């Protein structure tokens, strides 16, 4: 690890508090997928609060097929050196050795991601074993709380990555937030049964009911392609937005990236949303999720 020895005696690193805390600092921001140091600098200049370093954006993973794995650490390191904002990277679901390698590299956040080909069809990574924080995808409250139970310090919707179609991210956000609203109205007897039915740890169900929100930060991801998409996710109640293929698969990435950052800050201001939506050039072409074969969908990966 890259500690520079500045720590005082009695300082504690890798705690739940600092792992969840970094996600709190990312709120109200946009995390962008980048494949080169040049992309990373464009993202940082546009105001991204973090970047996700990967070899191929989801749209290309989809188009090219084959097994999608953790990116080359050397490529990730070049991106870490190019920017001062936090850098995230993806490992395969259940592939705890890829996660160990990313931690040894000094990455700021690991995304245990369904966008890559799963390495384990039953188990996710035991994320409590790591000092580096993890973000995981979910489609509903049960899945979100199972991931938090395994140690995820941040949650995102799965959406349907690489499509440019926001419909699945909306579905997943509405599912999680709607379930939390119902949870708040339940009495304690009902919480036990509800926890069993959604296959989530009871303690986390209870904590979520008391807080009226997930115990960790919750971002939108999967299919966000325009400033309006990003503001839609914010108005639905998400804490921030990941944009994958939507920026660097569009006609003018720098301009679109800046517009999406501004849309997330001013998501409640239609006049500013109008201005930032003008003349952005071509959006990514996209794939209509309702016309996709079930087997082509990646949101169903994860258990």
């Amino acid at each position, binding site marked *: *690890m*890259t*500690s*520079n020895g*500045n*720590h*005082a*005696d*009695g*300082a*504690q*690193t*890798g*705690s739940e*508090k*600092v792992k969840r*805390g*970094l996600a*709190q*600092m*990312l*709120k*109200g*921001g946009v995390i962008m997928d980048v494949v080169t140091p040049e992309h990373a600098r464009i993202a*940082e*200049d*546009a*105001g*991204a*609060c*973090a970047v996700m370093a990967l070899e191929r954006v989801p749209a290309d993973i989809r188009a090219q097929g084959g097994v999608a794995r953790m990116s080359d650490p050397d490529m990730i390191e070049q991106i870490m050196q190019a920017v*001062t*904002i*936090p850098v995230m990277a993806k490992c395969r679901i259940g592939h705890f050795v890829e996660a160990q390698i990313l*931690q040894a590299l*000094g*990455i*700021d*956040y690991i995304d245990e991601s369904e966008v890559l080909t799963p390495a384990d069809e039953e188990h996710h990574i035991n994320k409590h074993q790591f*000092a*580096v*924080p993890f973000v995981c995808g979910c489609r509903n409250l049960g899945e979100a709380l199972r991931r938090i139970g395994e140690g995820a310090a941040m949650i995102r919707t799965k959406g349907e990555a690489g499509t440019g179609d926001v419909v699945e991210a909306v579905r997943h956000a509405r599912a999680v937030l709607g379930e939390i609203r119902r949870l708040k109205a339940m009495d304690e007897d009902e919480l036990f049964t509800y926890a069993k039915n959604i296959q989530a740890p009871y303690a986390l169900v209870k904590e979520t009911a008391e807080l009226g929100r997930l115990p960790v930060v919750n971002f939108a991801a999967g299919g966000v392609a325009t400033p309006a998409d990003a503001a839609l996710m914010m108005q639905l109640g998400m804490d921030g937005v990941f944009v994958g293929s939507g920026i660097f698969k569009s006609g003018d990435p720098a301009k679109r990236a*800046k517009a999406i*950052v*501004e849309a*997330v*800050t*001013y998501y409640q*201001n239609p006049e500013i949303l109008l201005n930032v939506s003008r003349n952005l050039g071509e959006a990514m072409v996209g794939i209509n999720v309702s016309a996709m074969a079930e087997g082509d969908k990646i949101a169903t990966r994860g258990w």
Partner: protein
Amino acid sequence: MNIGVLALQGAFIEHEAVLRALGATVTQVRLAADLEPLDGLVIPGGESTTIGKLATNFGLMQPLRDFAQTRPTWGTCAGMIFLAKDIGIDRQPILSVMDITVNRNAFGRQIDSFEVDLPIKGLGALPFHAVFIRAPLATAAGPEVDVLARLETQQIVAARQGHLLATAFHPELTPDTRMHEYFLRLAR
């Protein structure tokens, strides 16, 4: 008392919750006009580059600088970077109102983020549980600056200059409200 929290990006809701619990009226600040009625301003943690770009693009830099020159302003983490006179990076916009030199990401990457009990001048005998996340440090402070806390390594992590307050850590992430009470006393 009406306290603003700069709400461009970052952990502004956490500050808002603590300030409300202490009885303050809280306004989220996204545009220059939002600053008018305020008795004090908190610049929260978040990504300082993101906050700086949004503040520049939406004409907030000079209004924020004018505000901080005369009215109580507290920066935590990214906010401390924002208040500083010098951060050693020319291309990043800062307010340059407080006589401290700040080093960004001074401890390394996220795996070096930490929590520690810290004695703080003005908060009583009990140490404050301080959470540092990719935190900055002040490497120098001018003669007008009152240093409130140092790590055992002697680096400055909390300081006050008249009506300006800066902390490298995040008091909004722990239940101890003494740091927020301290700021509200400045704003009174």
